């Protein structure tokens, strides 16, 4: 390379940073600084307002794992985790079915996907009405001659199952469209060849479709796990966390913004972050990504 005068050289060095300054500042201010601060807060008893704070060591973390009412929220995640297994199975089924030529294919595809696009508050209200006494669900059951006087959101188990059901209703569409895209990117000749060899539908699914969607499936599993741990909108809007439906994020938001326990809430958030990072790490280990991202 020929020698450039210093001024030109400096400008060349500087140019990429001029383009990167805004994105980097935003990235650091809104992602890395909060994570760093959160780590510090998590070892204090700060209330989020007063200028004073004192370090309490690992006290907040001990609280989270020993006070049963704080730990209880992890159990609620179990309902959503179970629901996401159902969700993935249904998404796989519909993606497989609709990858073949079915009448009204586009209509069904649209209907299954559309709930994913709907505003969460609207969904919350739609299903509050659905589950309420004399609401949509009771009316439908009434059509079949079944008079129900059950408060669907009344007991802890029933409420959590109902809310997890709403979550499946809402998120199934994204899984489905991702699977459908993966299934459709499998070349059609493969099915023809398999059919010539006498393979049935199930064998086609087992040996052609399943391997073809493995990367998307593993991505979906990790999204489901982190999604189940960070549920907030649907239960917050529908029950406000009452009757044993409080999730990890609802609890953290309440600790931080209602009870001014910034220190404890930060520790809870750090625990959640660590769990999600661990899950991601395990997934990367089990299913190594063959395509290298970005660079």
């Amino acid at each position: 390379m020929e020698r450039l005068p210093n001024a030109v050289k400096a400008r060349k060095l500087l140019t990429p940073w001029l383009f990167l300054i805004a994105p980097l500042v935003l990235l650091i201010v809104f992602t890395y600084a909060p994570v760093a601060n959160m780590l510090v807060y998590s070892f204090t008893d700060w209330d989020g307002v007063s200028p004073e704070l004192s370090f309490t060591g690992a006290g907040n973390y001990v609280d989270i794992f020993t006070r049963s009412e704080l730990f209880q929220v992890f159990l609620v995640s179990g309902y959503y985790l179970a629901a996401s297994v159902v969700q993935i199975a249904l998404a796989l089924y519909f993606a497989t079915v609709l990858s073949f030529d079915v009448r009204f294919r586009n209509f069904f595809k649209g209907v299954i996907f559309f709930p994913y696009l709907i505003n969460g508050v609207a969904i919350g209200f739609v299903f509050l009405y659905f589950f309420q006494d004399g609401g949509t669900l009771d009316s439908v059951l009434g059509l079949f001659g079944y008079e129900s006087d059950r408060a669907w959101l009344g007991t802890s188990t029933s409420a959590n199952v109902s809310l997890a059901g709403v979550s499946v209703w809402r998120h199934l569409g994204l899984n489905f469209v991702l699977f459908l895209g993966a299934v459709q990117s499998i070349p059609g000749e493969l099915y023809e060849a398999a059919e010539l060899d006498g393979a049935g539908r199930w064998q086609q699914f087992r040996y052609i479709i399943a391997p073809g969607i493995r990367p998307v499936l593993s991505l979906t599993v990790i999204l489901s796990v982190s999604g189940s741990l960070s549920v907030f909108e649907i239960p917050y809007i529908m029950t406000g966390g009452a009757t044993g439906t409080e999730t990890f994020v609802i609890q953290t938001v309440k600790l931080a913004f209602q009870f001014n326990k910034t220190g404890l809430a930060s520790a809870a958030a750090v625990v959640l972050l660590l769990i999600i990072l661990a899950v991601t790490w395990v997934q990367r280990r089990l299913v190594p990504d063959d395509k290298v991202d970005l660079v």
Partner: protein
Amino acid sequence: MTPLARVLTHLSLAVASVVVLLPLGAVFLTSLKTPREMADDSGALSLPDDLLNFSNYVTAFQDGRMVAAFGNTAFILLFAIAGTVVIGSMAAYAIDRFTFRFRGLVVALFLVATLVPGVTTQVATFQIVNSMGVFDTRWAPVLLYMGTDIVSIYIFLQFVRSIPVSLDEAARLDGAGAFTIYRKIIFPLLKPAIATVVIVKGITVYNDFYIPFLYMPSEDLGVISTSLFRFKGPFGAHWEVISAGAVLVILPTLIAFLFLQRYIYNGFMRGATK
């Protein structure tokens, strides 16, 4: 497929459609009912007496502050999307077209950030937003939506990579600087990526509840999510008004979906699998 399998397939699809559409349909029917009909207790699935009774929509608009809410949402959408497009495309251009020191570090910073879910860090983000003095203004969500969107950078990066470098070189020979190349050559060629980002980001911002709920508690600053959420108090027992509010919020999404189906499917697929 055997005839039986075909019947079962269609049956399962029909059941799925009913499960999706019935809860929405019931709310739509309810939104057209009068308070008197609601008190009759004729059930959620009964037809309203007057299919053109839009009085609940008027109530939702006037007493539910939905006009202001749509205005605030539009304001945030405009600035957040414009900011995301400019920032994302600039970052992608710099990362793909330049070799510089710490490039690997910059890329790693963006990569690692995708692993940090936004919901977990709000406790501390709140303090930062507060200290910047933008708490309870519409700029808080705008900044947060702009600052935490790494998926858009990915989408832009894929597109920048597909633009031949020879175009840049030709322009450079004509005396164009880096910024001119970005503005005159790269940016216009990014149109498909911009469309994707605008659609995906638009729907995400329109639907978001968490950030406006935390950062804009003032009633004047309600966006459609938070304003609809506030229906719970004053209209607590008036399901016909709440239903009208929900339909008002869902309708723009439905229209956008019907017109932009193809782009929406592609956008969300690209966004999720990055």
